[in-house]
């Protein structure tokens, strides 16, 4: 603990660096995955293409990705932008499938009713499909958040500052407390962002809170009212 007290400012700085690296990719991947997922869910052809491509992107290991990307987009190796782009690619690859599956999980009857009462594709998406697939999207975004925070540490190996720098520095100097601090801080940050997403989810999807019983019913596959 002594190390922690003596280096609070360092820990604070690296945590901020880490936030700057990991928050934009989480938000960007949601924003980008939404239209792509919708497209994947909507047409059979685009589904194949989009899901295959995102699956392939997802298979690219992070460390090589951080190295390959600058060669492609012209950023410098240790630029935060490089890492933000790489982490966004992973986030999108994961979220697209979640969005597609989430939208597909919306009850066909509800969709048909929406069309019947005259909803356009646009309003149907915003007012029916998106809210109803909300819980699935939120679950997916939470996974994206945790893995993004964790992945960002690898940037330290190529010289981008983050909580991962505590690993490489502690490793060189043989300070275990520093590495442990880095691990704990990374996990806490991941949990913090996860918690923030849950809070956002409560705000955006207020009806899910009051639906514990509904959730239980869903697990038993009993028919339940979808609209709150």
């Amino acid at each position: 603990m002594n190390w922690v007290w003596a280096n609070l400012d360092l820990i604070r700085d690296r945590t901020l660096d880490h936030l700057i690296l990991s928050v934009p990719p989480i938000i960007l991947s949601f924003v980008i995955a939404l239209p792509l997922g919708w497209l994947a869910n909507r047409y059979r052809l685009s589904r194949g293409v989009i899901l295959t491509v995102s699956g392939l992107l997802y298979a690219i290991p992070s460390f090589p990705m951080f190295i390959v990307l600058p060669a492609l987009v012209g950023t410098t190796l240790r630029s935060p932008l490089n890492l933000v782009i790489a982490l966004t690619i992973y986030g999108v690859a994961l979220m697209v499938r979640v969005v597609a599956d989430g939208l597909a999980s919306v009850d066909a009857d509800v969709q048909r009713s929406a069309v019947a009462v005259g909803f356009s594709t646009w309003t149907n998406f915003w007012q029916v499909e998106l809210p109803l697939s909300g819980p699935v999207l939120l679950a997916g975004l939470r996974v994206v958040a945790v893995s993004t925070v964790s992945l960002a540490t690898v940037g330290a190996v190529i010289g981008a500052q983050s909580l991962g720098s505590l690993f490489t520095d502690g490793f060189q100097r043989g300070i275990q407390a520093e590495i442990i601090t880095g691990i704990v801080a990374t996990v806490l940050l991941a949990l913090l962002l996860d918690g923030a997403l849950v809070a956002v989810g409560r705000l955006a999807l207020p009806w899910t809170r009051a639906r514990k019983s509904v959730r239980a019913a869903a697990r038993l596959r009993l028919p339940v009212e979808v609209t709150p």
Partner: protein
Amino acid sequence: MFTVKKGRLAAIAAVAVGAVVALAGCASGDPLGAGSTASGDSKTLVVGSQDYYSNEIIAEIYAQALEANGVTVDRQFRIGQREVYLPEITGGKIDVFPEYTGSLLQALDKKAAGGTADETYAELKKTLPSGLSVLDQAAATDQNSWTVTQAFAKKYNLTDIASLKKVTEPITVGGNSELETRPYGPTALKEKYGIETAGFKPVEDGGGPLTVKALVQGDIQLANIYTASPNIKSDNLVALTDPDGLFFPDNVVPVVSKKVDDKTAAVLNKVSAALSAENLVSLNSESVNDQKSAKAIAADWLKQAALF
């Protein structure tokens, strides 16, 4: 019902987009954003450092010395090994960087001749790309060495690098992965001295605790450890002498851009004049053994040296 929901979602979407924009703004304005930087502001100097704790301490000393003399400093520390940061220095994105004469010379010119500390320094001055210069070199050195344990040295009566030829057991070499292809690496041992090595084990800690541990435990027999490492003393290691100049002398020297004027250069020269070889070892020891931060170590040293 739906309109309420829509309003909420829209609000959250707006907040999210706002956050992205704000954070993206942070990211590009962030000092780490290599390409961007504060280079436009002529009063701010960018001080960089390698991804090596000892180098960071020296950079921090430079930074604090500059600040004590009214210069605004933008610290961009721990930016990888020479291969990563060299293009940024030559590209003028970093103004002050602590370097090591011989290693930098070899990185710039693979066929460099080297020699004594002064010869190496003079050659380096000539080799530097235009726009860059080196200030005075310090007496402090942190050079590469071939290091063995004291017991191993005693067993085979080892003194200098050439005497490794007397070793009859297989010698496994350890060090950072780039060592394998360095001009003083295992290949050079074979070509220059006929010393056969039995394999190479990479440990990416810059001759740090894990390399030392591997050496002491016998996982490796020969390691590249920097001569300013406090472990040499604390773990009973022997750095083999290098009479033939296999390793270039590596005196600490600030590499600076054109933005460093004479007055600023004088500040850094004053630091270099005071930085002795013993100083560097004890600075490193404060970092590794006392676990002090670079900031604290630098501040203490500057206070003790009473330069400003």
